[in-house]
């Protein structure tokens, strides 16, 4: 216990001024609905942060990243709001961002200090957008304040391509 505290504090000291930085995280739960359609492909999903007056920051993109010649990137533009806000400025595969598509079900993903970087205080929106080949597209938004109060949470749900989406914000 004592040891781990010491390690955390050392890490925080290295991180510079923002002492609590090492513990910053967003724990996100995304539900991809099971759909009964004749032709089902797992959706492409983008997860990113927006703040008025700042450039958008992509946290994760789940797509067909392992196709020959990086061909899966061809459909990234179909995740169209994310593509415009952030995606088109990235190159793929993107370190720490690229991930495989996910099957229907509930998926937990945690974005720590490495992924979040230094977040200035203010009002943010966490966005989750899903686009499915031969299917539809849906965007779910979770507004939040940073730095968060202890135990801060946000919940929303999609109605077609996304199920429940929830986040817990830690600092």
């Amino acid at each position, binding site marked *: 216990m004592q040891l781990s505290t010491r390690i955390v504090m050392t890490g925080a000291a290295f991180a510079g001024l923002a002492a609590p930085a090492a513990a910053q995280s967003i724990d996100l739960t995304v539900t991809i609905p099971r759909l009964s359609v004749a032709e089902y492909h797992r959706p492409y999903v983008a997860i990113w942060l927006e703040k008025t007056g700042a450039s958008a920051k992509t946290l994760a993109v789940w797509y067909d990243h392992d196709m020959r*010649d*990086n*061909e899966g*990137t*061809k*459909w*990234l*533009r179909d995740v*169209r*709001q994310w*593509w*415009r806000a952030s*995606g*088109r*400025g990235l190159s793929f595969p993107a370190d720490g961002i690229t991930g495989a598509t996910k099957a229907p079900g509930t998926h937990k993903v945690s974005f720590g200090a490495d992924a979040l970087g230094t977040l200035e205080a203010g009002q943010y929106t966490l966005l989750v957008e899903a686009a499915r080949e031969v299917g539809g597209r849906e965007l779910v938004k979770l507004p939040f304040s940073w730095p968060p109060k202890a135990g801060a949470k946000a919940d929303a749900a999609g109605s077609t391509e996304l199920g429940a989406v929830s986040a817990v914000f830690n600092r």
Partner: protein
Amino acid sequence: MKTGILRALAISTALFSATGAQAHRQWMLPSSTVLSGQSSWVTVDAAVSNDLFYFEHQPVRLGNVKAWAPDGSEVALQNASTGRYRSTFDVELKQQGTYKIANAGGGIFGSYKEGGVEKRLPRGASVADIETLIPAGATDVKLSESLSRNEIFVTLGAPTETVLKPSGKGLELVPVTHPNDLVSGEAATFQFVIDGKPAAGIEIEVVPGGIRYRDQLGQMDMKTDAEGKVTITWPNPGLYWMSAEASDANVSVKGAQQRRLGYVSTLEVLAP
């Protein structure tokens, strides 16, 4: 005869019939305008028709159609063919950024009297042929020079601006809002220039595609302001045909009294 004249206009000076009553419109339609990936392709249909965007009248001849890569270098059209109602070609996108595909050209049209009978110059007449087309002893020679441009833009990855720089010749679009960054409900501003200078007070027409399946044209008419700018708020996602025309006396062809300038583009507006 009427059809003949309309067709002549449609082909030789298609862009000018654009906003007139005869309403034949020249257009190019890319398969996509916003693309992702390491490399990609677009295929383009090019036609002259009444309804947008249905090929039903004449193909655009591809002789003057060219494409430019984001770095400004010219790229070849591939798999080009011209059918009864449309031409089609492919462009391979190997660079990240914005490509331009344009059909630009000039010509001369007009009439003269020979022995008291008015005759028209043949359609598609080129400036080089004037001497041979107008017989000695012709009177009442009326010549108009035409300079027209039909441009479309497609972007692989993030939009870039190299190909958007105007050449300084004729009527051109100088985007303030990038033409591959258009979203329904948002306003886009475009500047028009003639020979590189702001084209104030010229008429712009914007028509949404899909005309066949609705009763009203839904056309938006506007005029450029003192800086040659117009601002368009897109009412719906979809494809739009934008046309501008102007005329002046800054002719470069000897003997021409008037210069007619045209610009058209097909713009894709995405859903938010």
